[in-house]
């Protein structure tokens, strides 16, 4: 069986700065792996490498059995990878919560096609799963950081991905809300048999949920659990 995500000796630089210098991680299907490390150690960069936004100058990246360096277009692969970005979109854009979640379905709908009934029901199912259905008519930019994070999670799940990438999903939350969202993520990870890669600066928080934990330090990865 191929690994869902496999990085072998990956080196990445942005301009002249080396961000990653020899990172190797693997996530088998349905595994929950966490990557921890201090701010600025390249955790977000690592996620961008996995979804193909950044290409490493050395090393091999394999996602769902595809060697990313051999693919011309990654759009078909990205439809299988849900992402919850760290930052929330701060621009004042007129988008309701339900529309933002439905956006997760856009890639799979095909160009020109309008959302079908099953796309809407999938979006509502995910809003219910993460507990945001009650304010589905609200505008996204009017929500708190934590609520926006849940919207991003629902959107990523509405995509029905095989792989879920989470970039500091608890950044804007207080302690109890952090545990709540981690529980939601963990439950959905098992229910939907996802391969989950979560990056966080808080090793303690992710410890109980993770099958494996890698520490990212000075551009290198170390398996610590």
């Amino acid at each position, binding site marked *: 069986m191929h690994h869902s995500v496999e990085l072998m000796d990956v080196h990445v630089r942005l301009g002249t700065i080396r961000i990653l210098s020899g990172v190797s991680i693997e996530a088998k299907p349905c595994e929950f792996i966490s990557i921890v490390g201090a701010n600025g150690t390249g955790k977000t960069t690592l996620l961008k490498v996995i979804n193909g*936004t950044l290409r490493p100058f050395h090393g091999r990246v394999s996602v769902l059995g595809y060697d990313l360096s051999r693919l011309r277009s990654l759009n078909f692969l990205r439809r299988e990878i849900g992402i919850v970005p760290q930052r929330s979109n701060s621009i004042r*854009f007129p988008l309701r919560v339900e529309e933002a979640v439905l956006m997760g379905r856009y890639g799979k709908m095909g*160009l020109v096609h309008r959302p079908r009934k099953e796309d809407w029901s999938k979006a509502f199912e995910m809003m219910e799963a993460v507990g945001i259905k009650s304010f589905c008519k609200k505008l996204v930019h009017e929500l708190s950081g934590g609520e926006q994070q849940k919207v991003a999670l629902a959107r990523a799940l509405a995509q029905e991905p095989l792989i879920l990438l989470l970039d500091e999903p608890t950044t804007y939350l207080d302690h109890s809300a952090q545990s709540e969202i981690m529980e939601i993520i963990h439950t959905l990870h098992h229910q939907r048999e996802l391969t989950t890669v979560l990056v966080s600066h808080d090793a303690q928080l992710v410890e109980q949920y993770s099958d494996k934990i890698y520490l990212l330090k000075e551009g290198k990865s170390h398996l610590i659990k």
Partner: protein
Amino acid sequence: MEILNFPFMQHALVAILFAGVAFPIIGVFILYLNLIPLRFAMMHIALLGGAIGLYLKVDPLLLGLLCCLFSSMALGPLSEKMKLGVGILSGYFMTLTLALAFILIYKADIHVLEAFNILWGNILSLTILDLMIIGLISLMVLAMVFLFFKEIQAILYDREIAMAVGLPEKTFYYVTIFMLGLTIAVSMRMIGALLIDAFVLLPAMAATLISKSLKQTFFFSSLFGLLSGLSGLILSFFLDIPTSSMIILVASLIIAGCFVLKRWLFSYEKIR
């Protein structure tokens, strides 16, 4: 109503009907994709084109338009290749093309006012060919929004998310920039580069103040574009004021009205 007996007024009216509805939609793109510098860059690129046209004894307006089209096609891919934002690259081209235009005007002994004519425009001097071009571009903009609404919505909201869900984000972004260049080039002929905002940006700004969805934003921006265009044209005729300036005045009043309406709606929602 007798003003409609003049062919130049009929032409202006048809142009406003098309451009008033379609061009503000491009203004919405400019606002949400933060492409305001691109609009300035296009103005200066057109000026350089005009100067080259005068030097080569070719229609300066046509050359100005061609320069705008070519640069709007090149800017997207170039910004990606150079890893610079379109905004930064626009700033670069804005100053470079202006400098080149001045050098050409000075060295080739071109009459400055002739070159700058491309920046003024005149909605009352449109030909049938102009109307056909305006109509065609307007229909292209409307068709694009109608067919690819969901893709456009995702890209305007967040390009990274559009890419992450597997949409061909780059292609759409480049097409958007191209359409923007096309619209600006045609608007220059209609209303002049310096007053493009009347048709493109101001109605969009007003719409973003009061809209609660992207569909509403597109609808209101088109409505305001049409409203300011038509009333500006008619008022300018009766008050003997330049048409472009009158359209801008009406559009500015609409923005002020939307701002007041927004404040009122906000306080009403708070009380409720």
